[in-house]
């Protein structure tokens, strides 16, 4: 078996900075060789770096993986084994004396963005970014309209964007998808591209999508009666009166990730029979089997109360539910535990896991499966 690139470099003589320059020019960082991923950091020649770590959030693994210095050079490295198809977000942390600094990997241009900033991305062997999430000039684009909804229940205006599919025709009737954290799904999960492509390829039915945005997210999405009332009694009635929507349970779906998934579930729970389906990704479905200690902090208290109550008396809230979760995120345990609970109520649950974390790109990568399952397109009937 061929030695790893970093080990071949170590064997070279003389191992000097010029050789490292040449090495780095040839490599894409992290260096992915089968299951082994070599992370690299290079300090300056007059830079007194004392320690370096790769920082990630893979559940069950140490959060900070120490890097080793290569001989007496300025190059540091760490080798991690990542199963095929994995995608991991990480940063580099450096200690200089008492001073710690954390930043994205300067040697890796691949970044993932989120509302709280960006991270570097390691795509292990076998991972491919789905082509249906990229801009495709062949796909006819839908249209995004800004909608401001006075939200009485929430006591603030709600900014939404409404997606109308290409070939929108006011004489037809469309299903509705309501997306929590709407702007984040558009900005960080390429959801406009995804919708354009899936609809164009007939993987997904032509759908009107309402991208909603929270005011106080932690409060509104953690099993809030006001938020549920806003969706059920204000936003959706307005959309159904102004747009050609089906207006039936089968034509109403709620979607969200993380706390947005809790908001979706708890809204459907409060209005059983009103929504036909849910798409919930990496749901923050935290519960306790005994006691009240859950480790999520005060923000999770209402979520835990809701989930415990639901688990004590599970009910069928929709007909169909698509669930997904990354196996590297701590929420994997809660999500796996909820699958049989949901299925036990008679809901048709499709559950999917990926070697990924709690990230927008993980949620993006599962959209085709989720959306084309909830609102399937007519591809089955097209033979061109």
């Amino acid at each position, binding site marked *: 078996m061929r030695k790893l690139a970093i080990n071949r470099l170590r064997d070279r003589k003389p191992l000097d900075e010029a050789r490292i320059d040449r090495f780095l020019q040839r490599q894409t960082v992290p260096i992915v060789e089968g299951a082994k991923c070599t992370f690299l950091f290079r300090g300056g020649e007059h830079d007194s770096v004392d320690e370096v770590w790769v920082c990630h959030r893979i559940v069950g693994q140490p959060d900070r993986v120490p890097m080793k210095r290569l001989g007496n050079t300025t190059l540091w490295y760490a080798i991690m084994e990542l199963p095929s198809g994995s995608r991991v977000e990480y940063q580099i942390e450096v200690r200089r004396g008492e001073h710690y600094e954390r930043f994205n990997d300067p040697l890796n241009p691949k970044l993932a963005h989120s509302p709280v900033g960006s991270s570097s991305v390691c795509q292990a062997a076998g991972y491919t970014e789905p082509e249906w999430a990229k801009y495709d000039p062949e796909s006819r684009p839908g249209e995004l309209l800004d909608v401001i909804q006075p939200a009485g229940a929430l006591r603030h205006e709600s900014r939404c964007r409404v997606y109308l599919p290409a070939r929108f025709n006011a004489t037809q009737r469309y299903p509705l998808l309501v997306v929590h954290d709407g702007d984040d799904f558009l900005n960080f999960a390429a959801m406009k591209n995804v919708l354009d492509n899936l609809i164009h390829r007939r993987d997904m039915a032509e759908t009107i999508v309402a991208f909603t945005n929270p005011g106080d997210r932690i409060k509104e999405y953690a099993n809030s009666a006001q938020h549920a009332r806003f969706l059920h009694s204000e936003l959706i009635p307005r959309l159904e009166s102004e747009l050609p929507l089906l207006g039936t349970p089968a034509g109403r779906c709620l979607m969200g990730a993380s706390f947005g998934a809790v908001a979706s579930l708890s809204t459907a729970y409060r209005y059983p029979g009103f929504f036909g389906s849910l798409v919930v990704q990496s749901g923050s479905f935290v519960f306790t089997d005994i006691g009240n200690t859950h480790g999520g902090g005060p923000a999770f208290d209402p979520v835990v109360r809701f989930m415990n109550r639901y688990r004590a008396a599970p009910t069928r809230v929709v007909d169909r539910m698509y669930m997904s979760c990354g196996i590297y995120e701590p929420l994997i345990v809660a999500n796996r535990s909820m699958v049989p609970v949901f299925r036990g109520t008679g809901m048709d649950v499709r559950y999917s896991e990926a070697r990924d974390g709690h990230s927008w790109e993980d949620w993006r990568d599962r959209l085709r499966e989720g959306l084309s399952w909830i609102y*399937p397109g007519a591809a089955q009937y*097209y*033979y061109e």
Partner: protein
Amino acid sequence: MTVVLLGPQRRPNLDKLVTSLDLGGPFVTITAGWQEREKDDSELDRHLRGRSRNLHLWHRMQSVFENDPQYAAAHRERRAQLLELQELYQLGLSHTVQFLNELRTRTSGSAALRELAVADAVQVLRGMDKQHIARVGEIQASFYAKYPPHERPAIVRHRHEVAQLLADAGAIILAGGHIIELLDALHLFNLNPAGFGRLPIVAWSAGAMAITSRVVLFDEHSVRGPGCSEVFDHGLGVLTGVTVFPSAKQRLRTGDRQNMGLLAQRFAPSICVPLDPGARVVIEHGTLPADASVIDATGAMRPRGGDDAQAGDQPTA
């Protein structure tokens, strides 16, 4: 009578075909599967050197719906009923497919008994297919008995015009698209009695499916659905004993020999014919040529072979 089946026409080669077969015009074209784009057929007309006459069946159908709202409502109701029936049938198929998948991954016990169980599962699929198509037939018959098209003026006028155009035609060109819309249009305007079967036909994709006697839907990579092919409806029956699979390499797990073998066994004695890009199968008097690619009972895709093999003479598995 000559029937030519083609692979998908993303890069059309119709002009060369028409020349090589010495087909004379005028050509009646059917692009109803393109639905609202039915009339965007200038490229097709170019390939036919300006000698095409589009029957505009889809637009005629919309006109019928506009002028006969009672028929339109009944048509919608029938379609909803058929789709619901299809969904129930899919549910049954998906359980049998799951059973087959479990048998395939099972390694313990007797291989001979497992083979018997696989054969039984194929029989279950064949039984479901047969029952389903019978139920579809019942719904269709009941619909036509209640709403006889030949008694509805909005339909009769179009039928007459379509028959006139067919009477003057030298060949029929049948394009792909949405199979349900295409089938509905072909049935509504009664193409068969109007002389459809006496003319040379060139058909591809959904068009090729529509002229067989049994239309089979398939997309084994789809997120939803039974994970296997499904019988959908009767076709025009111009071509019997053949089940066609347009874009087979894209829509079927063709690399999985066992899967493909089960497909051939399930639809036997009908012969499974893949129609991938570039395919051209010329059928004279119902005889499948020896060089036509078919899927055999072992799952191999190979030339049909044999002398004068009649479509439909593959033994039942």
